[in-house]
């Protein structure tokens, strides 16, 4: 049982590292990409919705630690917000059906919007940058649209990977019991 969980854990970490590299090393190298979709948010939403709060939190913590250590200034800033994002998406697991992409799209949009507001409040509002309208129109909403559009493609892939991992887990567990 421990080995199976470890494999699933490694699967989640691998998907996240791939997404992180895509988001921060490949996409920014393309010059005409003005807005880069937040792929980590998509991954957290997908794992949370597919497998519930535990895997949502796991994905959130891994993403958060990655962002904090590579781009953050303090460990914990991204970790906390991603942790809650994973948990809240995980709670919505019961509304999620494999053939319907409406819920993931809404969840992903809301999550990215929430992340934008979190960064705005803690990094900008607290330093007396009050013009929320500007930040919403130029930072939060464009990124949200790009994230949702990318999500429509990525959700199917991540859901498939997740189903594969679950299937593998079930098969193994019946074999050994």
């Amino acid at each position: 049982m421990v080995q199976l969980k470890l494999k699933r854990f490694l699967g989640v970490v691998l998907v996240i590292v791939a997404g992180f590299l895509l988001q921060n090393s490949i996409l920014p190298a393309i010059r005409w990409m003005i807005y880069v979709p937040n792929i980590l948010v998509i991954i957290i939403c997908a794992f949370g919705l597919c497998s519930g709060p535990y895997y949502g939190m796991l994905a959130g913590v891994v993403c958060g630690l990655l962002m904090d250590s590579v781009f953050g200034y303090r460990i914990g800033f991204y970790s906390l917000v991603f942790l809650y994002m994973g948990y809240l998406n995980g709670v919505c697991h019961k509304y999620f059906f494999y053939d319907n992409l409406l819920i993931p799209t809404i969840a992903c949009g809301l999550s990215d919007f929430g992340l934008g507001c979190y960064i705005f409040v803690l990094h900008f509002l607290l330093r007396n940058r009050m013009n929320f309208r500007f930040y919403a129109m130029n930072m939060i909403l464009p990124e949200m649209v790009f994230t949702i559009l990318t999500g429509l493609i990525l959700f199917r892939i991540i859901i498939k990977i997740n189903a594969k991992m679950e299937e593998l887990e079930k098969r193994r567990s019946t074999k050994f019991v």
Partner: protein
Amino acid sequence: MKDRFNFRIPAKMMLFLLTLTFLALLVLSFFKSSVTDALQNGINAAIMPMQKGLNQLGSQIFSEAESLAALKKAQEENVRLKEQLAALQEEKSLSQQDKYELETYRELFKLDQEYSQYEKVGARVIGKDSGKWFHSFLIDKGSDDGLAKDMVVIAQGGLVGIITAVGPRSARVMSIIDDESNITAMSENTRESFVVSGDLELYEDGMLRVMYIDKESEIGPGDKIITSNISSVYLPGILIGYIDEIAVDSNNMTKSGTLIPVVDFEHLETVLVITTLKNTGDDIIE
């Protein structure tokens, strides 16, 4: 087997525990950063080589398509540059005379602090904070190559930013266009000091904010702005950009305005790191 994961701790409890952990780490990083630094460096070291390779791959694939589109632009530019060349050649002969004069003066004052004489290390940009909120990026050199925190980064003849964190094989640079960046700068002509700070709202138009200029000052549009000699971290005399416009503030005491940086921050691929740290006078004992 209804509960697929067989966790002993309920999800809410887990959330609470993890929240506490991260809050503790957050507080810890303010007081004793060595612990959190070790964690950050470990994760960084694992992810760095992958970033380096993939960033090169990404730019290679898309540079092909871009080069075709760039060709037409280059032809137009060629005509313009030829005109510029003629003007520059004349300027060069003039400046050569000035240079001779300058060298005599410099020898006279032993003023060897021009930034052409600082020791520099070249580095590649290998990753970028993808959101539009922060303007920091990663370079592929670190403490193993002699880099340290607070070293100044330049490119294209102008100031790019400053190293805010350094790992053994990589370093993070905060650009001067970041909203949290503040630099003490001065005008090359009038030698008055003031502050240049990044502002996301102004950067939408490619500009930085200049603040706290004395009301009586004669700084005006087109003035060359360099880093000040009294800045606490930035080495003096590095070109930042040119003043765009200046107006008196509503307090009627100071002036503020906008500045156009010389560096094209969107298309940075290689940068130079000055490995000389500024002497801040910390060795003075009262």
